[in-house]
């Protein structure tokens, strides 16, 4: 077993990683020469094709949590880990059916454009930007801390250095290459990740006559048939339901995913890209079934736990076991690239929120020179990059696993609720939107602070005030009801009259 290869500077890993950096920096240089306007910076000039955007959406979505986290959970807990894989995928049909077209037709750069379309700009922009930035911040912290830990484990690089490298390389992509460079980084990363996971799965299945059932059976023989069914996840069944709700409706509220719909030329390309992305992500999660059980059988749970209690090293260990140190190096480089790309996408969407929503529409009342907008967007990017690096270092050694769940809960109960009500319900008002987003964000934050994840797991209290690990089961209905009730109590005639224009443009597109 080549577990000793982990945590050592691995020449193959460093070689592949430098190759990836060289390639993506070349792309960034090319993109920088084409990034002149705000439309280029935020939306790649709207010239990304449906297939390209499909890969880029997949790249934005498949984080290190997907690859390393789910493989590790399946390896250690069997079927329970698959619940996450399934939950992460079923959000995509919701993106397709409810948000892709209206978003493309109504907005320019951010999902806030759509929420604020017929409502009063300043209050709605501020509330929606807060929801969007909260999601970006929690997601970013989870990614940065994950990056530091993983890179330390795989490359033997000190944690702070890893965080710093991720932060600086990501800044170079976004700052100079804008959305065009970020899109191509996502595409390259998605191809590498899908290729690497496929190769790894093929090497595993080769030992089981290419029959996944033989692999699952081997896992059942070694760890008991129970590992193929629900386990400790169902200690509190409502936990599973609440998590499911957050994952299902959170995807359609993630600002960095929603922003990608502005990079394609029209609504048709937007929906085609969701179809491609869902196929790629679905395929990837089906492959993680094989990687997880493969690691459990070939590497063994004890060996995985010995390296990292969270199980995050299951896939790299599996790579070392079936493909040797060279293949481990390749997989490690892919994981690094995965984190880098997701962080870049998050930073760009955060920068758009700060500059386009808050600076241009709140501070400047919607009137700002193009050069000023672009300048502010770049300043915001640097700011977010510095904040990301700082947060990554501040949260060193902290258990931040709950932050992804929190990001999804806020995305579902603040962003998606407001988005859907604004696009589909005539009676929705400015006050309703602000109250709904405020209630959703606040409820998510408070309930997660009172949850067992924070009180018991992190602060080591005996019991938690709120029984569920994910707040979505309460926060999502609460934000919906708040939005509806406030809109009913204080109707806004101007918002109702604006609905016809919204619906017309949502259906026919900005051209009509």
């Amino acid at each position, binding site marked *: 077993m080549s577990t000793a290869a982990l945590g050592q500077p691995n020449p193959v890993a460093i070689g592949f990683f430098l190759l990836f950096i060289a390639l993506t920096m070349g792309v960034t240089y090319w993109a920088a020469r084409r990034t002149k306007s705000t439309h280029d910076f935020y939306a790649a000039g709207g010239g990304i094709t449906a297939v390209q955007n499909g890969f880029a959406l997949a790249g934005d979505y498949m984080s290190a949590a997907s690859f390393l986290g789910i493989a590790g959970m399946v390896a250690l807990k069997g*079927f329970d880990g*698959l*619940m996450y*894989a*399934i*939950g992460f*995928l*079923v959000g995509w*049909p*919701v993106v*397709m*059916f*409810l948000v892709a*077209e209206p978003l493309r037709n109504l907005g320019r750069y951010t999902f806030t454009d759509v929420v604020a379309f017929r409502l009063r700009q300043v209050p709605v922009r501020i509330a929606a930007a807060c929801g969007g930035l909260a999601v970006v911040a929690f997601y970013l912290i989870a990614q940065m801390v994950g990056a530091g830990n993983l890179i330390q484990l795989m490359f033997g690089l000190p944690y702070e250095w890893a965080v710093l490298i991720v932060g600086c390389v990501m800044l170079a992509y976004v700052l100079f290459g804008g959305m065009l460079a970020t899109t191509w980084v996502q595409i390259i990363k998605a191809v590498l990740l899908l290729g690497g996971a496929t190769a790894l799965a093929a090497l595993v299945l080769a030992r089981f006559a290419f029959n*996944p*059932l*033989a692999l*699952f*059976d*081997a896992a*059942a023989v070694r760890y008991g*048939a*129970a590992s*193929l*069914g*629900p*386990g400790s*996840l*169902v200690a509190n*069944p*409502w936990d*599973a*339901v609440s998590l*499911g709700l957050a994952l*299902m409706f959170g995807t359609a509220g993630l600002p960095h995913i929603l922003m990608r719909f502005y990079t394609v030329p029209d609504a*048709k390309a937007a*929906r*085609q890209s*969701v*179809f491609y992305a*869902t*196929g790629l992500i*679905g395929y990837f*999660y*089906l492959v993680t*079934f094989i990687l997880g059980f493969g690691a459990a059988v070939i590497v063994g749970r004890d060996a995985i736990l010995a390296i990292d209690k969270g199980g995050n090293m299951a896939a790299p260990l599996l790579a070392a076991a079936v493909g040797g140190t060279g293949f481990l190096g390749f997989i490690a480089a892919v994981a690094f690239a995965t984190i880098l790309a997701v962080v870049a996408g998050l930073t760009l969407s955060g920068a758009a929120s700060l500059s386009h929503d808050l600076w241009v529409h709140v501070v400047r009342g919607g009137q700002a020179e193009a050069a000023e907008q672009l300048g502010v967007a770049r300043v915001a990017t640097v700011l977010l990059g510095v904040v990301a690096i700082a947060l990554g270092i501040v949260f060193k050694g902290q258990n931040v696993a709950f932050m992804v769940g929190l990001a999804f809960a806020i995305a579902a109960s603040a962003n998606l609720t407001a988005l859907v009500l604004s696009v*589909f319900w005539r009676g929705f008002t400015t006050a309703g939107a602000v109250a709904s987003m405020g209630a959703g964000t606040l409820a998510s934050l408070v309930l997660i602070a009172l949850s067992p994840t924070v009180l018991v797991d992190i602060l080591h209290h005996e019991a938690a005030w709120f029984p569920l690990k994910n707040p979505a089961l309460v926060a999502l209905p609460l934000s919906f009801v708040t939005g509806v009730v406030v809109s009913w109590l204080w109707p806004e*005639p*101007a918002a109702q*009259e*604006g609905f*016809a*224009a919204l*619906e*017309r443009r949502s*259906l*026919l*597109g900005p*051209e*009509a």
Partner: protein
Amino acid sequence: MSPPDDRSEPAKLDPALTALAARRMRVGLGLTALVVAAYFGFVLLVAFAPASVGALAAPGLSWAILLGAALIVLSWLLTGAYARWANDSYDAEVTRLRGERGAP
């Protein structure tokens, strides 16, 4: 409060657009309801009947894994079905309505 700024916009949609909006809403919400029902049906089975979904459908294959994989494939097929519907029937209607209202 400033007066509503809708000098050129009609206060109501014309009937053809209203019909199109209703059709899109029906298809969008209907398919969403289908995915929600399928997924939460699965989550509730896992949560409240773990023993039955943990049973084996074949050697090495539990019902839980089989249904989970089927759910992933179903989600993808439904996005495909929606894209197909929208590209064929819905877009044709959008193009026709846009044409009726003159080139942009």
